[in-house]
């Protein structure tokens, strides 16, 4: 009964979205207000929420007559994983996504006032277009309420063990909060194309920043999850799924900066609109790549080429619709406005272009296997991480350079100071370069690049704060920006240090034996078996002596076996000290009774996620700081 109710609510929300879109379009056609659509938007949210609750109830009550529950849950799963198992597969995560999308639309509607009801209705029309696409896609191709009747299994096949994890319970919701949030600036931008002028650039900036903050946090959580849960200590794999979250992130980053210029100077109007549209299309393409199974990835969803085709068609239709509105809009542009070479506008323009090119380079590397397949008649290739490192690092280097310098420039015109700062930055670069080469004695070009990037951003920030130290209001207003920029610098430093100073060792070690890595003495003291509610594990106990602090720590990596799904998992164990992580994971037990283990030292790896966290905080500060004045 309950699944049917959920299904009906899902269909109601779809019908409501279609109605809102049609009414908004009709109102545009008549060129007058017909009725206030906000209430329908709230009904739509309530309806999709009920649908979500219905599916949660099915999960929590182990209703295995529902196909989706049967394939993603198990009676022995701890209760909190039963809850989060809802977004462990394709169908449920689509439902979560449209719930979150609807939540954004409601929040936007509640918190943003438009003088004209008609204007607001237009925006409801645009958000509903996206909602109805996804809701329709869910209902017709991936309905989570499908039943296994009359014969339903007594037992579920279990949630993928990789996903039975805390970070996983919050990673998808955060990521979806980011993706779905980008729909708001998309709607505002299309609204601008049909003549909704009210504070549009300011609102795009604000809502993009909010969505961007969640997206940053979501991506960082995913990276953290991969680091300790995939078991082998990497924090970024250039996997298609990771790339397809990075592309919208880069576009959103460009959009925030472009919207700042549009809001302040009323230029780059077309550029801001274009980026708003591209951010959403980028997320669509990402979703297509992830869900169609066209690319081999470590994140596997139930793969279905037909779904992929439909997503591709949706992407295509929404692109055509948006670009049609974009091209027919008569936006008087004064792009040839009077800004000079050393102005803030110019630097923001360069960085915007670079961010977009970076996004395209990553997207291209990600889909290149598909293109290759088509043009060579079925030959299969993979594009390795070296491609991404070699192409992204140089572009990122220029972005960081212009970022560090750009915040010291002024709106509109160049000042004499500009040349002075440029000289200073050059000097900082040369000093950092010699410093890294003499102190670290490490001629790795990638990590050197990251130290230079760190130096560029930090020196820019330091001069900026010093220069404005008497103007506390200005500094306070830009606190979010300063924090976010500091965050990216911290992250870049972390990336540089990890890639140049990581150490690892693969060892064969038996009970009572020792091994050394750097400052650590590692001894295998004991091993045993442990039973848990839904899996059992072989646990090996290592005693680690940290020779610098004389601390003794026990690390217990596991090899776990999940009978319900017949899966094996590597559970690493990590000793976290302020300066580095000591990371031990088990490979396999040999016939002689000895273990193969991988021991790694990851210095300052936590700076990567700390940086992302600081960026997120910066984003939130920027949103909530500004709203007070505007």
């Amino acid at each position, binding site marked *: 009964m309950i699944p049917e109710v959920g299904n009906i609510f899902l269909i109601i929300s779809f019908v409501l979205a279609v109605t809102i879109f049609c009414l908004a379009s009709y109102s545009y056609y008549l060129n007058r207000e017909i009725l206030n659509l906000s209430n329908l938007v709230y009904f739509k949210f309530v309806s999709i929420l009920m649908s979500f609750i219905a599916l949660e109830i099915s999960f929590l009550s182990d209703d295995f007559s529902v196909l989706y529950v049967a394939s993603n849950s198990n009676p022995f799963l701890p209760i909190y994983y039963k809850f989060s198992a809802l977004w462990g597969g394709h169908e449920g995560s689509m439902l979560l996504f449209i719930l979150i999308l609807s939540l954004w639309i409601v929040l936007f509607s509640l918190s943003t006032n438009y003088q004209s009801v008609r204007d607001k209705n237009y925006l409801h029309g645009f958000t509903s277009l996206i909602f109805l696409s996804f809701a329709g896609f869910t209902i017709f191709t991936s309905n989570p309420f499908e039943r296994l009747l009359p014969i339903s299994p007594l037992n579920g096949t279990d949630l993928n063990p990789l996903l039975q994890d805390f970070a996983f319970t919050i990673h998808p919701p955060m990521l979806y909060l980011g993706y779905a949030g980008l729909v708001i600036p998309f709607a505002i931008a299309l609204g601008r194309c049909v003549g909704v002028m009210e504070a549009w650039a300011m609102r795009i900036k604000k809502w993009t920043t909010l969505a961007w903050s969640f997206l940053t946090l979501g991506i960082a959580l995913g990276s953290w999850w991969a680091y300790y849960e995939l078991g082998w200590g990497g924090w970024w794999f250039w996997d298609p799924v990771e790339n397809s979250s990075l592309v919208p992130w880069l576009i959103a980053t460009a959009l925030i900066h472009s919207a700042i210029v549009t809001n302040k100077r009323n230029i780059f109007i077309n550029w801001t609109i274009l980026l708003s549209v591209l951010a959403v299309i980028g997320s669509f393409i990402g979703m297509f790549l992830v869900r169609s*199974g066209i690319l081999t990835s470590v994140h596997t969803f139930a793969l279905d080429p037909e779904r992929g085709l439909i997503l591709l068609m949706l992407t295509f239709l929404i692109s055509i619709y948006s670009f049609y509105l974009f091209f027919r809009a008569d936006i*008087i542009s004064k792009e040839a406005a009077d800004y000079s070479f050393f102005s803030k506008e110019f630097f923001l323009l360069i960085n915007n272009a670079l961010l977009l090119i970076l996004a*395209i*380079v990553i997207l291209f590397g990600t889909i290149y296997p598909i293109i290759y397949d088509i043009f060579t008649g079925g*030959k299969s290739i993979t594009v390795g991480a070296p*491609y991404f490192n*070699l192409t992204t690092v140089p572009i990122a280097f220029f972005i960081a350079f212009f970022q560090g310098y750009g915040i010291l420039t002024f709106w509109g015109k160049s000042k004499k100071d500009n040349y002075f700062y440029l000289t200073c930055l050059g000097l900082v670069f040369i000093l950092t370069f010699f410093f890294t080469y003499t102190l670290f004695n490490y001629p790795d070009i990638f990590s050197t690049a990251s130290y230079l990037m760190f130096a560029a951003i930090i020196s820019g920030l330091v001069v900026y704060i010093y220069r404005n130290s008497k103007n506390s209001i200005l500094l306070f207003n830009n606190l979010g920006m300063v924090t976010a920029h500091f965050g990216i610098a911290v992250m870049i430093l972390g990336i540089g240090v990890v890639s140049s100073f990581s150490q690892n060792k693969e060892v064969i070690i038996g009970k009572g034996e020792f091994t050394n890595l750097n400052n650590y003495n590692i001894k295998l003291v004991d091993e045993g078996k442990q039973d848990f509610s839904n899996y059992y594990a072989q646990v090996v106990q290592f005693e680690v002596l940290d020779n610098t602090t004389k601390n003794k720590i026990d690390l217990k990596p596991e090899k776990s076996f999940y009978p319900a799904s017949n899966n094996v998992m590597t559970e690493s164990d990590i000793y976290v000290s302020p300066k580095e992580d000591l990371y031990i994971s088990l490979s396999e037990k040999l016939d002689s009774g000895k273990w193969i283990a991988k021991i790694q030292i990851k210095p300052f790896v936590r700076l990567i996620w700390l940086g992302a966290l600081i960026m997120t905080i910066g984003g939130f500060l920027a949103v909530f700081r500004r709203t007070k004045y505007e």
Partner: protein
Amino acid sequence: MIKIRKNRLYAVLFIFGSSLLATVLVLTALNQNINLFYSPSDLFASNPSPNKSIRVGGLVQKGSLIRIPDSLEINFTITDLKEEVTVNYSGILPDLFKEDAGVVATGYYDQINNSFQAFEILAKHDENYEPKEVVQALEGK
């Protein structure tokens, strides 16, 4: 077309064009970072260069897995049920690597000894998932 729209179109075309050009150039330069996939039969048919890293996939032949005692060195045979190739590998194996299951190895092919020196081994990601290429190799594609 109104001039503004024309400009807008040029701007869009310029951005896509220049970035696409940039990527094509980059990809040409990075040719060595693209790993082509071969089934054991393809290896015989096309003899890839021994200096270029490639991927080979198929099933791990039953009874072929040999480990040099107490070391990370292993040998096994990949088969597509028509041809086979011996793989040498030193290092950690993925969790779901086992005999009679799908595998994709990345490394260098030595035609004279019909052996493959792998530096990376990928197996199934979970019980329900088989690498796409392995399925195709076994179907004799």
